[in-house]
């Protein structure tokens, strides 16, 4: 069976600055790929290339008809936009012609009346939850999550990570997730892709998340705590 996503010899450059060079990997259906790397290593840019929103060289091949739900890291929005979460959820539902129950979805990510308030009045964490709900409309086959729990309180983080893992088991959802939380990566990812200037690597967490590898990736010793070990 061909992979869900095939990336070959990918290079992304802005003017003279090469952000990603010579990157190859593939993702199979049902995988949970964590993408790690220091700031500026091109993680978010990689996601933008994967959805076709920045120019690139090389091959990015999604399996035909695949539906992507994308949770961006941050949005450059004015705080006084008179757009509510409900406006966004309903807009996407109509565009992708889904009949999903918007209120139920909001509840599932831990939002309730907040979806009827202007998005600029939501807290960072509430807005992140809204973006996750927005990504889930239209029954995506794959989720691209760019630090989707940043700014979310601890119970909220647990709720969102549990939701994503439930969706993986329920629907066989494939997840690509950019994260800085190595202990979460260790527990939840089936594979880890590390981006760093000189040493891109991919492999299961046990192989990649070793002290030596991490020092290579981040250029400094990195410690992380694996719960339950």
């Amino acid at each position, binding site marked *: 069976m061909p992979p869900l996503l095939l990336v070959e010899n990918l290079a992304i450059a802005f003017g003279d600055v090469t952000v990603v060079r010579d990157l190859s990997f593939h993702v199979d259906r049902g995988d949970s790929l964590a993408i790690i790397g220091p700031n500026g290593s091109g993680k978010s840019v990689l996601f933008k290339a994967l959805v076709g929103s920045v120019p690139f060289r090389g091959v990015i091949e999604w399996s035909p008809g695949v539906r992507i739900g994308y949770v961006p890291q941050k949005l450059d929005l004015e705080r*006084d936009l008179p757009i509510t979460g409900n406006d966004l959820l309903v807009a996407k539902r109509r565009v992708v012609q889904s009949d999903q129950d918007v209120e139920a979805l909001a509840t599932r990510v831990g939002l309730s009346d907040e979806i009827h308030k202007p998005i600029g009045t939501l807290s960072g964490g509430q807005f992140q939850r809204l973006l996750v709900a927005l990504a889930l409309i239209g029954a995506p086959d794959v989720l691209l999550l760019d630090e989707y729990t940043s700014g979310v309180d601890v119970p909220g983080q647990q709720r969102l990570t549990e939701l994503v893992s439930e969706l993986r088991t329920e629907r066989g959802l494939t997840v690509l997730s950019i994260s800085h939380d190595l202990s979460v990566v260790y527990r939840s990812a089936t594979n880890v892709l590390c981006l760093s200037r000189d040493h891109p690597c991919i492999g299961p967490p046990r192989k990649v998340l070793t002290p030596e590898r991490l020092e290579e990736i981040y250029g400094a010793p990195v410690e992380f705590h694996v719960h339950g070990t």
Partner: protein
Amino acid sequence: MALEVTALALSIITASVAGLVGCFAVMRRMTLAADAFSHVALPGIGIALALGIHPLFGATAMLMFGAVIIWALERRTRIATETVIGVVFSTALAVGSLMSSGEQLVDALFGGPGVLTIGELVFGAAAALAIGLFIFTQRNRLILWLVSPEIAKTSGIDVTRLNLIFLMMFALTVALGLRYLGVLLMGSLIIIPAVTAKRLARNLNQMLGYAIGSAILATVVGTVVAHRVHRPTGPIIITASAALFAVSLIRRRR
């Protein structure tokens, strides 16, 4: 009299679509660009007058061309867009003013009096219909695109095409208002009701509603007052629209 009523009806319809398009223009952060953009109509009017064709065609063609220029530039970098709009479109105003003579110029800048021709009415009605249809059928796509082009893309929206059509509809809206507001003021009828609505509204439907409402109110009040005091309509419409904005400032923010 019948034609005057028709003309007022057309300006009300124009105000409505200006309010609608303005909402998305303001949310797209082209508040200032919108104003400079409308100046590009002037050389179009100049060329049309020199060639002896209807100024509206020259203006519309030039505005469409301007829309394509912005679109092409925005595909490169964002900063360049602002710069180019500032330089190129203001130069268009200068060049356009060299190409037209005194009275023509004042009419083109501030809107001219005189009776609307049947052709102008038909063009106005058709353009307004096209713009209104575009906004109502594409509003969901426009909202997703405004919030995040990536979310729009992953929802299956062709954002490059949507952006081009939006800019062309914006250009068409400017063309619609040229006759009675002129090159200098049409940008204001698109922007001011929309920023007024943005202050008052708490959701998208409210914003669209308030924008249409305040644009129509300003147009009707402006037309009636202008008639009474025997002054050109355009400047009074914009003053009325700005007065409504001032009133919106009084309202305490949520």
